[in-house]
């Protein structure tokens, strides 16, 4: 943590830094390299999308950033500190089945709020129920919610503990395309209101171009950063504008999907 005030350090806005990060797993006595030499700086409040061929290690990268895995090389640094494990200041949202089925909507959102007073917890829960538009479902159990509502709930549970970084692992990947479109819009709305740093893994090129400030393209395994694309279109983005399509084609080309599809 930078405690000196009044000094404008050159890294003032830096939130997350990956320094020469490499990851290898042991498999049948052999070491299999999944990620190699990943270098990336993410500023505070930035929206980053990670794309790449399936199985290339996007989720592994996210788990490293979340502190669930320890890199075999290099380090992940958040707020100038090497991370040493999971922390409520950075919450990972899973693709599906991440909400607790034994708790109601309220119970799920309040899950990480045990340390707050009853009144504060109540207030926080109400706030995020509203934010993800689950009013009227406070006492509903997840098994009675649609897939899209479950994902909103998972996002609300994550936001409720006030994290400064949100990791989303293909959060809309299991949803139908129209629900996915709606939830993207909602995520953008929430991000613009709360300005948390978001790292979003997806295999959907449209999703990446629609959401991200920068798109990080990973290569096939062992994954390296192939490209970082800056998407400088202001929100809300017109998904049929020429600039949007240009970025989209560019990204498709870089992933190599343009030729295989």
């Amino acid at each position, binding site marked *: 943590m930078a405690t000196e005030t009044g000094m404008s350090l050159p890294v003032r806005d830096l939130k997350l830094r990956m320094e020469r990060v490499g990851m290898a797993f042991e498999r049948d006595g052999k070491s299999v390299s999944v990620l190699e030499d990943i270098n990336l700086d993410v500023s505070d409040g930035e929206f980053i999308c990670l794309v790449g061929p399936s199985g290339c290690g996007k989720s592994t990268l996210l788990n490293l950033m979340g502190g669930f895995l320890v890199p075999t090389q290099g380090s992940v640094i958040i707020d100038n500190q090497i991370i040493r*494990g999971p922390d409520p200041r950075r919450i990972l949202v899973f693709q599906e*089945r991440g909400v*607790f*089925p*034994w708790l109601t909507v309220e119970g799920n959102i309040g899950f990480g709020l045990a340390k707050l007073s009853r009144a504060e917890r109540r207030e926080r829960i109400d706030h995020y129920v509203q934010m993800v538009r689950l009013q009227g479902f406070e006492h509903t*159990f997840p*098994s009675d919610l649609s897939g899209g509502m479950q994902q909103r709930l998972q996002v609300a549970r994550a936001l409720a503990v006030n994290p400064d970084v949100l990791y989303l692992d293909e959060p809309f990947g299991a949803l139908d395309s129209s629900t996915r479109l709606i939830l993207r819009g909602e995520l953008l709305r929430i991000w613009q209101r709360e300005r948390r740093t978001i790292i979003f893994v997806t295999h959907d090129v449209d999703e990446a171009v629609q959401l991200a400030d920068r798109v990080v393209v990973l290569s096939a395994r062992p994954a390296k950063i192939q490209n970082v694309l800056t998407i400088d279109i202001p929100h809300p983005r017109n998904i049929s504008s020429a600039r949007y399509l240009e970025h989209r084609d560019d990204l498709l080309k870089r992933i190599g999907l343009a030729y295989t599809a």
Partner: protein
Amino acid sequence: MKAFNQPGRWEKFFWPLLAATLLLSLWHYSVLWTATQVFPSPLSVEKGLAELLREHVLWSDIADSLRRVALGFGTAAALGIPLGLMLGWYPSANQVLNPVLQILRPISPIAWVPIAIVLFGVGDHAAVFLVFLGAFFPIMVACTGGVSTVPSIFRRAGRNFGLSTAQILARVVFPAALPQILVGLRMALGISWLVVVAAEMIAVDSGLGYLVIDSRNSGKRYDLVVAAMLLIGLIGLALDIGFRRLERIKSVRWGFDHES
């Protein structure tokens, strides 16, 4: 077509009643035709049941059996649930203890009768101990299995929200495994009811099991024997139905949805 597959309300009761009536009459006429002097007819069983109710010993026998089940099953749950959770949570502990437990598990509680009597003497404690043995292993195994099948996503979410290991066990692993634990408890309750009757035939002088053996020994009252057997069946059914109601509690219902 669907109307044919979905039985009407009356059919739900009609067919089971018909089956029961047929079985009863089969029983009745078998007794008549074979002219047996030993085996009672349904009517004499019914009279025997009325006699038991009149003499008021029945209620204290039922109460004794239920009390033994409550004590034995309760102790088994109180020890088996935490131990099972621990073994599921620490696979290395499971590896150490599992072989011993797997050898003890298939031993019928009835085989423990001599040891139970040596340890506790002839009396209540011995019967409770046997019930405990019958219930303990299924509960423990269900808990261990329940914990090991909790999706890692839930544990990771628990860690992510900053929970300690004890908190993850209490707030994530236990509720996630609860549906499976309930299945184990229900099975254990059924076994407890089987065991208590057997134990009461050997180790004590009260309870429904004792009623069965005593009716036979004092005057070969097979009408009372069968009456007591029927009661045992009915109470066992009631226990199971009562327990199944727990599965409808909302915080565990998600684990049973595929069954309904």
